[in-house]
C-alpha cells in the first residue's frame, strides 16, 4: 500500500521551491562561460590581416561598456555574463516560486469556496 506515499512525493516534487541563490549563481556561471567562449572562439579563428574581428559581437559594447572582441574583452565579457546570468537566474527563480504561490492561493480559495 505505497500509493499515498508516492502521491505525497509527487506533490512534493511539483510544489518544490527553486533555490533562488543557487539558480542565480548557476546561471551566472553558465552565462559567464558562454560569453567568454563566444568571444574566444572568434579570436581563435584565422582572419585576413586588417580585417575586423567579430564586428557583430562587438556591438554588445553598446550595452556592456568596456567589452570588446579581444583577449582582455573575454574577461570583461565573463564578468558581465556572470552579472547578467545572476540577474536572469534570480528573476526566473523568484517568478517560478511566486507563480506557484499564486496558483496555490487560487486553488486554496477555490477549495474553501467549494467547501462552503
Amino acid at each position: 500500500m505505497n500509493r499515498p506515499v508516492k502521491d505525497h512525493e509527487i506533490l512534493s516534487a511539483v510544489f518544490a521551491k527553486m533555490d533562488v541563490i543557487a539558480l542565480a549563481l548557476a546561471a551566472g556561471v553558465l552565462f559567464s562561460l558562454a560569453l567568454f567562449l563566444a568571444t574566444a572562439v572568434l579570436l581563435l579563428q584565422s582572419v585576413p590581416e586588417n580585417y575586423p574581428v567579430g564586428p557583430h559581437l562587438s556591438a554588445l559594447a553598446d550595452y556592456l561598456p568596456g567589452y570588446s572582441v579581444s583577449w582582455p574583452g573575454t574577461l570583461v565579457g565573463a564578468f558581465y555574463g556572470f552579472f547578467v546570468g545572476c540577474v536572469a537566474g534570480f528573476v526566473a527563480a523568484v517568478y517560478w516560486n511566486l507563480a506557484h504561490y499564486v496558483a496555490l492561493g487560487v486553488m486554496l480559495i477555490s477549495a474553501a469556496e467549494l467547501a462552503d
Partner: protein
Amino acid sequence: MGNYQNMQVANSNVDGVNLKLLHAAIRFNALMLGLTGGTIAAVVIYFATHASMARWGADSGNYLGLLAVFFPGYSVSSGGAWIGAFWAFVYAGLFSWLSYRLYGRVLGSRISELLLSAAPTDNPVLRPSIMRLHGASLGLAIGAMAGLGLFFSTTWLVVRGTAAESVHAALLANYIPGYSVSLLGGLVGGLGLFVFVFIGCQLLAAVYNKIVETRHK
C-alpha cells in the same frame, strides 16, 4: 472494453505511482514554466526595444529590427514594443511549456526521487521542499526544443526566399560548424545546438545542485 482502454487502466498505476496525478502535476508545472518564460521574454523585448530607441533614436533597429522576420508587425517603435512583447510571450511561453512537458516525460515516474533535495516535508503545499535539477533530462528537453527551434527558424528563412540575404543568421557558422541558411544547414545547426545546450544544461544542473546541497545540508 478495447485493448487500448485495457492498457490505459493497467497503466494508471505503475510502481505505486498514480499516473493521473503525475500527468496532472507535469501539466501544472509546464503551465507555470510557460507563464514564467513567456512573461520574462516579453518584458525583455519590451525594454530592449525602448532601450534601443533611447540609445539610437531614429537610427535604432539595425539589429533588433531583424526580429520582424519572425515577429509579424514588429518594429523598433513604441507600438512595436507591445507587438514584440506579445510575440515573445507566445514563442518563449510555448518553448518553455513544451520543454517542461518533455522534461516531465523524460523524468517520468522517477520525478520525485530525481527532483527532491531531501525527504518530502509533512506538508508539500504549504512547506515545500527545495527542488533539484536533473541535468540529463533538462538537457534533452531544452536541447531538443532549441535544436528544433533553430531548424524551423532556418527553414522559415529558406521558405520565404531570403536565405541568401540572411547574413546575420549565417554568422552562426562561427560557432556551429556546418551550419548554413539552408535546409541541410538547419538540420546540422539544430543538431549542433542540441549538443551545446545539452552540455550547458548539465553544467547548470551540476552547479545548481551542488549549491543546493551545500546550503541545505
